[in-house]
């Protein structure tokens, strides 16, 4: 990290996170000046800022930029801490679309009447956007210091978000669990980073990769460093054995926050893994890939089996999101078998495609759960019985989301995602991994289908029907997620092609 700044800051490159951060501050400040019930204005600011950041991502599309660079001193190319390329932009787009949907769902919560215990408007918007800023930086970060700091920026506001509902013991408990596990894992990760630094003498991923590529320099120190660094990121995506915070935290948090954690925060963790292993540790693929493969199978199996026994909507989705993390990690688990770099590229492409689909359909499901849980605070799956009779549109959206998570038509987007993941395992010649995914799909269907069937079941006679009266903002959020999910089903090339292009650059 020595050497003078080789160039000034490329403001265009850092525009998306800057816009998100500025919007976060604007929401916080505006909340101080506005009258108490001005949720609409706050949402307008936060949604507008997110859209602006999305536009910035769109304008950067096709560009490759880098900033915060230092000369390596050896005459080689400068090492940069912040890199914009298609992978960065795809993940930033996922983060921003996810944040957008979450902010729309948040609007319903902060605009709720006082007797429904609304979330504090300014704080919620501020915290969501702050955390999203961290995720945006994480997608572009190319040195371990930036990545660790960005990871913390994602996590710190998230602790507060989980415990945001005042006088809610479950929320406080969830936040505390989340906090403690997070602190431990980040400490482990920092230890790993320090070992890697000790072994390679650099925090920049490209320099680390170069140093690790030297077979003579292969040490157990570096191996331990690589594995411990991944621990912190595995925590973020909720991979087994770092998953146990997920159900408690999701269940304790407001539903919209759980939606945020399961999509944006998870995508951040995943992009971290993708960037670190592909840019920093490709030479150690024979070390981390088998570890990830085992973790992937353990994660999907445990998540699915635990989800079978859940009776509460959010807990079920929490375990399902653990299982989904397992599927997402599968392609990385076979990244080793090819000696050429192209295998890594294929693996990354599969991960990106899966995350895109997962983010969209999971948001659709969480959005409907957020709508329903306003009127049915117990959040039991049984509460969804007959939803199709009172809220046909919501029931269709939730049904689509659940079946897409299961990977079965009519949720065709999910089917393509599963095909991509199984294909990566097969072409990585890890047949056992492919079969593990296949078997897990069957386990997963059991609980997704149980819930889907309830949506369309006849309502229980005698139980008073609830008028859900879907708020416009929530309706738009769910509709947006559903529309994108259907688009991915009919035109899978959109997401798969994108994933291919971007992965080509990393691999």
């Amino acid at each position, binding site marked *: 990290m020595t050497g003078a700044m080789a160039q000034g800051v490329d403001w265009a490159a850092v525009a998306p996170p800057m816009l998100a951060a500025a919007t976060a501050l604007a929401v916080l400040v505006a909340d101080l000046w506005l009258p108490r019930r001005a949720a609409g204005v706050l949402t307008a600011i936060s949604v507008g800022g997110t859209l602006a950041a999305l536009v910035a991502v769109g304008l950067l599309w096709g560009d490759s930029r880098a900033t915060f660079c230092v000369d390596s001193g050896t005459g080689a190319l400068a090492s940069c801490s912040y890199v914009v390329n298609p992978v960065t932009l795809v993940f930033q787009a996922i983060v921003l679309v996810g944040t957008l949907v979450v902010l729309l769902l948040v609007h319903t919560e902060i605009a709720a009447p006082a007797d429904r215990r609304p979330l504090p408007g300014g704080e919620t918007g501020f915290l969501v956007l702050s955390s999203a800023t961290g995720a945006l930086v994480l997608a572009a970060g190319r040195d371990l210091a930036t990545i660790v700091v960005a990871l913390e920026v994602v996590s710190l506001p998230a602790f507060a978000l989980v415990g945001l509902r005042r006088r809610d013991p479950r929320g406080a408990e969830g936040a505390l669990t989340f906090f403690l596990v997070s602190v431990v894992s980040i400490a482990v990760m920092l230890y790993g980073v320090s070992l890697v630094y000790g072994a390679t003498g650099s925090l920049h991923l490209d320099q680390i990769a170069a140093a690790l590529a030297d077979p003579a320099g292969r040490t157990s120190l570096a191996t331990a460093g690589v594995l411990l660094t991944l621990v912190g990121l595995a925590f973020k995506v909720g991979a087994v054995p770092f998953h146990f915070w997920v159900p408690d935290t999701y269940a304790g948090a407001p539903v919209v926050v759980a939606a945020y954690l399961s999509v944006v925060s998870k995508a951040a963790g995943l992009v971290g893994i993708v960037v670190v292993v592909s840019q920093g540790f490709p030479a150690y693929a024979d070390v981390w890939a088998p570890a990830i493969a085992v973790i992937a199978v353990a994660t999907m199996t445990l998540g699915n089996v635990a989800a079978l026994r859940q009776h509460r909507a959010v807990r079920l989705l929490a375990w399902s999101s653990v299982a989904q993390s397992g599927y997402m990690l599968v392609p990385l688990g076979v990244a080793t078998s090819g000696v050429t770099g192209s295998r890594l590229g294929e693996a990354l*492409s599969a991960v990106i*495609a899966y995350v895109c689909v997962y983010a969209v359909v999971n948001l659709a499901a969480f959005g409907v759960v957020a709508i329903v849980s306003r009127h049915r605070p117990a959040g039991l799956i049984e509460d969804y019985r007959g939803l199709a009779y009172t809220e*046909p549109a919501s029931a269709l959206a939730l049904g689509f989301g659940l*079946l897409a998570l299961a990977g*079965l*038509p*009519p949720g*065709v987007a999910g*089917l*393509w995602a599963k*095909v*991509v993941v*199984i*294909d990566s395992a*097969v*072409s990585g010649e890890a*047949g056992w991994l*492919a*079969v593990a*995914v*296949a*078997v897990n*799909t*069957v386990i997963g*269907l*059991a609980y997704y*289908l149980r819930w*889907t*069937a309830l949506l*369309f079941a006849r309502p229980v006679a005698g139980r008073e029907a609830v008028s859900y009266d879907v708020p416009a903002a929530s309706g738009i959020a769910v509709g947006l997620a559903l529309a994108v999910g259907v688009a991915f089903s009919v*035109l*899978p*090339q959109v997401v*798969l*092609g994108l*994933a*291919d292009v971007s992965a080509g650059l990393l691999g």
Partner: protein
Amino acid sequence: MIGQVLLHVALAAPLVGCLGLVAAGRRVRDRRSPEVGVVASGIALVALVAAALLVDRDDTGRAQLVTDVAWAPALDLRWHLGVDGLSLPFALLTAVLVFCCSVYTVRVRPEAGRLRAFVAVVLLIEVGMLGTFLALDLLLFFLFFEVVLVPMWFLIAWWGDPHDRPGRTSAATTFILYTLLGSALMLVGFLVVHAQTGTFDMVELAARGGEGISEGAQLLAAVAIVGGLAVKVPVWPLHTWLPDAHAKAPTVGSVLLAGVLLKMGSYGLVRIAVPAVPEGVGRIAPVLGGLAVVGIVYGALACLAQTDLKRLVAYSSVGHMGFVVLGIATLTPAGLNGSVYAGIAHGVITGLLFFLAGAIKDRHGTSEFHQLGGGMYARLPRLGALLTFGAVASLGLPGLAGFWGELLSLIGAFRPSSLLDRPYFLVLLVIALVGLVLTAWYLLVVVRRVCQGDDVIGGRLPVLGDVTRHEVVSWGPLVALTLVLGVWPGLLLTLVDPAVATLLSGGGS
């Protein structure tokens, strides 16, 4: 050009009908919705018949009326549809059976109500079934294969046996989990093939005949694909989902399950497994043949032990599909022809038998033999006569549809492919013949117990209507097909034989 459009019309009509019913919601009154089903499935049937007339009947070994456009290049997925002598009969069978079911539903409504949803679900199932038979791309085949699952779950779980709510739900769940496990394994096999050859194109794969796929990968792919499809067929001992699913499903569900869904499995074996990975299939064919004859005998013995007409028809499928699989396992033209013929005949005859069993159950409130007693000839003479007709067709009486397919399968087993061990297959042949005798036995037992004898319960029941005009209309096509396929096997075999020859001759060998 017009042919391609017709195939798309056949797929689109039920899909539009289904989406229309969902979108219209309560604007379409429940009792009018079966008419939507009749129109949609009727359009599909007419379109397919027209397409069949356009097909060059002298060249059915080649895929015709082909549409082939890239859908998702990143997945190597293509929208690749077409028909040849193999897929056309199955597609027509599907269209006929769904049309019969739709007509039937106009008058005979499921007890559980919710007709609009019922019709929408049946139409969605038709989309999946037709697409499975028309697809010429492995991934597209997989997509359509999966489309059927969720609607079929709803069909069984919601409109199934009204007296056994937990039973029908668990039957539906067993069905979907088993078949999903099978199709997920099949997908793994497809992807292995793709990893080795770089194509999902069934025509191309058949032309290559396994060329370019290493021996180990062939075996792996064959085990995955055949194993996955064997769940659907079902091959003994993977059949355990079948009896409950068939017995608990509503009449229409049983007809479609037995008539078409099982054929999706056997069709996949002939269409994909045999031509794409011939060496791999050759290695496991003896096992497959062995399981097939075990299934024939097991199915027959299980039928002898049944006390319920509907369950008996369900178990009989295990035996009949055993002949279908035995034909495939011989890897000969005769065997494959027999497999296709037996499959089509089973679809028609068992479809009819499930209609009859459903009609008997609706009239008596039960299909248990001891509650039905005997004397159907006295009580409901026309229904009894039809049941006898279906039973003798099912046991393979010469002159009716069931005969030719089983005969050809046995001929195939008599002279199996040169790659296979002939004495072993002769043993299988003998066991299959024993199964054939047992099959005749249990079907004649059914006729004796239900149709003949004294009518003991007739006096205690309100007057039951015999076969109605409406039922004649909806079952008539199946009776006619049973007769036509029985006396004129050439009608089907001239279509199928060139296609089978193409699939078996892959790689120019």
